[in-house]
């Protein structure tokens, strides 16, 4: 069997084992390569720097637990920066698992810095309706959320008495594995001029980039790499920086096998022509 035949018949198990070993390697021996910080990430950080103590931010967790491996570092980093600035947080979600992500990754950071539930932060939970829901909460949150994720009456929470409409929010941050950035750009930014920040998964970055360039979205992080850059910018390297080496190796494996596949394909074509 020629080399070309061998290349074109690489067993799946070889690919899976190569992938497994190479993504596990950086956890044992981190590469620790320095990263060039993009302007998008810098803008993201400086926009939040511009908030004052006591301002209110709407954090929309529009990702499920499956996207935490990609954006979890960003969730924690945002919680760290907002709590360091003393910004109050109201969390909503268009994804059923979103409130769980908030409770597991965002809330512990807030509580470790002395944030009190109901006064400094609120997790309203998931509401159905996607864009319709987002349009509605801009005008009256209590018309959609009568109770929060813990079952408390929203009207009884001190923070929600003063933050029931778009006018109370200095900005919206959305963690997005779907289409929520577009919803906020249309229903909050275009209509009321609210500042929107987006943290999409890597695959959605290009999809939302036109909104960023048009100014509908003030700043955007480029998936896991953007989260790692953001962690470095706020001086708290964590989950995203730990994962970025592993991501590097995983991407290299994909590129490597893609190129091998093409070497085999082109080699086979040349051989057939010669015959």
């Amino acid at each position, binding site marked *: 069997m020629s080399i070309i035949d061998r290349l074109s018949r690489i067993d799946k198990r070889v690919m899976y084992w190569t992938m497994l070993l190479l*993504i596990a390697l950086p956890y044992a021996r981190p590469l620790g390569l320095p990263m060039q910080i993009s302007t998008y990430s810098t803008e993201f950080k400086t926009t939040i720097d511009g908030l004052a103590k006591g301002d209110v931010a709407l954090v929309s967790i529009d990702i499920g637990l499956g996207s935490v491996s990609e954006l979890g570092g960003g969730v924690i980093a945002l919680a760290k920066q907002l709590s360091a600035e003393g910004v109050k947080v109201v969390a909503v979600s268009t994804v059923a698992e979103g409130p769980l992500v908030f409770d597991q990754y965002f809330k512990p950071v807030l509580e470790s810095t002395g944030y009190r539930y109901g006064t400094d932060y609120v997790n309203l939970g998931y509401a159905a309706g996607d864009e319709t829901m987002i349009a*509605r909460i801009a005008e009256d949150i209590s018309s959609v959320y009568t109770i929060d994720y813990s079952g408390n009456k929203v009207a009884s929470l001190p923070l929600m008495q003063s933050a029931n409409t778009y006018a109370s929010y200095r900005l919206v941050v959305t963690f997005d594995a779907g289409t929520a950035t577009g919803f906020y750009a249309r229903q909050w930014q275009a209509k009321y001029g609210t500042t929107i920040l987006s943290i999409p998964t890597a695959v959605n970055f290009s999809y939302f980039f036109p909104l960023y360039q048009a100014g509908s979205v003030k700043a955007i992080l480029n998936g896991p790499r953007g989260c790692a850059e953001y962690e470095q910018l706020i001086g708290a390297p964590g989950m995203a920086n730990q994962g970025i080496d592993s991501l590097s190796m995983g991407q290299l494996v994909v590129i490597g096998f893609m190129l091998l596949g093409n070497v085999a394909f082109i080699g086979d074509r040349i051989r057939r022509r010669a015959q």
Partner: protein
Amino acid sequence: MLVIASYFTTNTSIASASDGLQLWGIIIAGFAAVLGLISYTSYNARQIAKKRSVYAVVAVGSALATVALGLTLTPSSAEYGWLTQNILTPLTMSVGSFIGFFIVSAAFRSFRARSLEAGIVLAAAVVIMLKNIPIGEYLVPGVLPLGNWLNDVASLGGNRGFTIAFAVGAVIAGVRQILGFERGRVVKP
């Protein structure tokens, strides 16, 4: 039409009617989750009745147990938190991580430069993947500006055109439907 009109006017009657419609939309969307649970349970119940799959028992059992726990103890309770942190989170992350393995195999077998266009797509994909990882800048110097150009110019132009075309198309489709020209979806031929 009321919802669209409310976007352009401050008339309180129109705004009030639009608000009501939006709330209806949210309530109807909420029922979709209930409908999904009923459909999921009934499908798996049939599988159990026909003794087709033991996994159906696990599927229905875990779904109903989670719903019961959430309804009785609230989703923010310690027990529900344990369930999500120790069962749901690792399972969901594992399923998500499998995609990486499938992508290697799929990319190897299907991402071939069979034509010039496919070759360009392949080259762009490699550049963007290298741009998104720190090691890419070290392996291929210059990949970052090239990747940024692909993202900020080439991809942006195509994406913007697609977005605008989609939005205009949606408006036209909506107007045609409201005026009765587009009845394929509501009237049987």
